């Protein structure tokens, strides 16, 4: 590859004119090979070595901290956004639900079963020996005082997340008269407690409150 060569470099100044003193320039030329790999050459030379290493370590660690700080928003952006969180509570009017009926509604994009238990169903739920249950809870634990007939649970089987049957009219209610999950055969009783099958816990009762006699706030 061709470059025009002249034997002398006088005339035009080279691109980077020497900035530092001549002494420094000489030193640079002499220490040339050692400087090729300063990390080796520096080892145990002068007291300045420690300070130098410290600067590099500080720079690299500072860069690491910065990268971690930038990573935070890049990760947190995946969590629920403000509009999703804004829908985190709903209000449902339950006045029209007759004893023995239930409705399915949607809360946080998940099904919620609201069931008006008949006195017989309440009695059946209270008859059960709580100590013998897989997930011991009484009906009272799962409802609000004075409103024991209102059973509100997530319609999400605690096994692997299918929607159990039994909320809509005519659906199979399982061997214990509550809900039945067809995916893997979990049976829930009239308090939506797990009685038979693989599900480990009772259907989850979401946080809810009666804000009037007939309006429930879920979430």
């Amino acid at each position: 590859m061709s470059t025009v060569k002249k034997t002398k470099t006088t005339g035009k100044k080279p691109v980077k004119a020497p900035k530092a003193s001549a002494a420094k320039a000489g030193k640079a030329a002499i220490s040339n090979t050692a400087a090729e790999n300063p990390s080796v050459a520096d080892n145990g030379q002068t007291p300045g070595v420690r300070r130098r290493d410290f600067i590099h370590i500080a720079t690299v660690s500072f860069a690491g901290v910065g990268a971690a700080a930038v990573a935070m928003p890049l990760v947190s952006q995946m969590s629920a956004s403000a509009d999703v969180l804004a829908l985190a509570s709903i209000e449902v009017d339950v006045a029209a639900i007759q004893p023995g009926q239930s409705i399915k509604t949607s809360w946080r994009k998940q099904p919620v079963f609201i069931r008006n238990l008949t006195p017989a169903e309440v009695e059946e739920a209270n008859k059960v020996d709580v100590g013998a249950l897989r997930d011991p809870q009484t009906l009272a634990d799962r409802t609000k005082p004075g409103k024991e007939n209102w059973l509100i649970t997530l319609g999400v089987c605690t096994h692997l997340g299918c929607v159990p049957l039994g909320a809509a009219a005519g659906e199979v209610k399982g061997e214990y008269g509550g809900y039945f999950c067809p995916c893997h055969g979990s049976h829930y009783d009239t308090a939506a407690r797990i009685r038979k099958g693989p599900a480990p816990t009772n259907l989850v009762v979401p946080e809810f409150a009666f804000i009037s006699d007939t309006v429930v706030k879920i979430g």
Partner: protein
Amino acid sequence: MSFPWAQEYKPQGTVSKWVDERLPLPRLVYNAVGAGYPVPRNLNYFWNFGVLAGVALVIQIVTGIILAMHYYASVDGAFNSVEHIMRDVNSGWFIRYAHMNGASFFFIVVYIHIFRGLFYGSYKAPREMIWLLGVTIFLLMMATAFMGYVLPWGQMSFWGAQVITGFFSAIPVVGEPLRQWLLGGFAPDQAALNRFFSLHYLMPFVIAGVIILHVWALHIPGSSNPTGVSVKSEQDTVPFHPYYTAKDGFGLGIFLIFFVAVTFFAPNMLGHPDNYIPANPLSTPAHIVPEWYFLPFYAILKAFTVDFGIPFTGIIIIEAKLMGVLAMFGSILLLFFLPWLDTSPVRSGHYRPLFRKFFWFGLIPCIILLTYCGGKPPYTQWVILSQIAAAYYFIHFLIILPIVSRIERPLPLPNSITEAVTGKPLEKAAA
């Protein structure tokens, strides 16, 4: 690698040895950007911009992938999904502003990188392939940026898509069918938006692939340097790591300060207000302009106002519209021929007195003028200026450069890089 004195990767410890024998990736990195890559010792700050362009691409890919998690490519939902990102997604405003301004900074960095190549003759033998791949990357970047600008489906997005695909309709006979094929319809709509999104997601990875080739080609002859004098001995070089990693780290800090200042304090400075109006196919904004980085080319497009034909017969051979489009593409494509247009054996503009004059007093003002005129409405004074500047642009590359390289008498070159740096000849310095 090229230089016999390049340090060899020596795996330390059994695990490193085990990996090295099976997949020598650490060795590859060591030889590419580690101590195994000898680099001229006299590189100035203009040589930071290659690495910075890589950083800018990474910023774009990372923020882009995140935006794609929240964006919908739908003519009804795209605009609102961008605003959803700006308002409701956690830190979404930051990611979107970073992506938006990241595109501009990518172009700023790449333009400086190209400018460095033009001035220091980095396109000359034996580095032609690096240059050709670089121009390819630039073209891919322009396509990617254009398609990305369409995605928010604002007024400028829509009308930009309309105008830019309109270039193709200038081509005789096949133009209009070609345009309809590109858009998947008669005007930009759902089909166009969807394909632009798909391609906008794909292209950065194509760019990354071409960058790998670009860097590979770079490692054959090694980096050029401000003197343009080839490396002659070990003294002329330093290992990339730690010398240039440290310098690039500092350069990165400066770059990020500028980037952050614009992204956080003037995020819409480089954008256009009309793109905050949802696309309306029935009403064009009063004054449509592309993003700033396309303005010089847009000015060239607009500068052609007369048809080419046989005088006094009314026969038109090339319409002004088609010529504008040809010239606009030509203004970029001519860069592919640069290594063969500039035949001077001297690389660096420092040692080329005549070239340097045309570069600083011709090309640079001409490009600034084109950028400025590109953003102006079509008033007479701006048309006149852009016609002068565009004419100079073509004359510079296609006529002046070949002639200058022939007639110019270069200044004496230093014997070696070491001599240019230390003022002492190579042999003496070695002592």
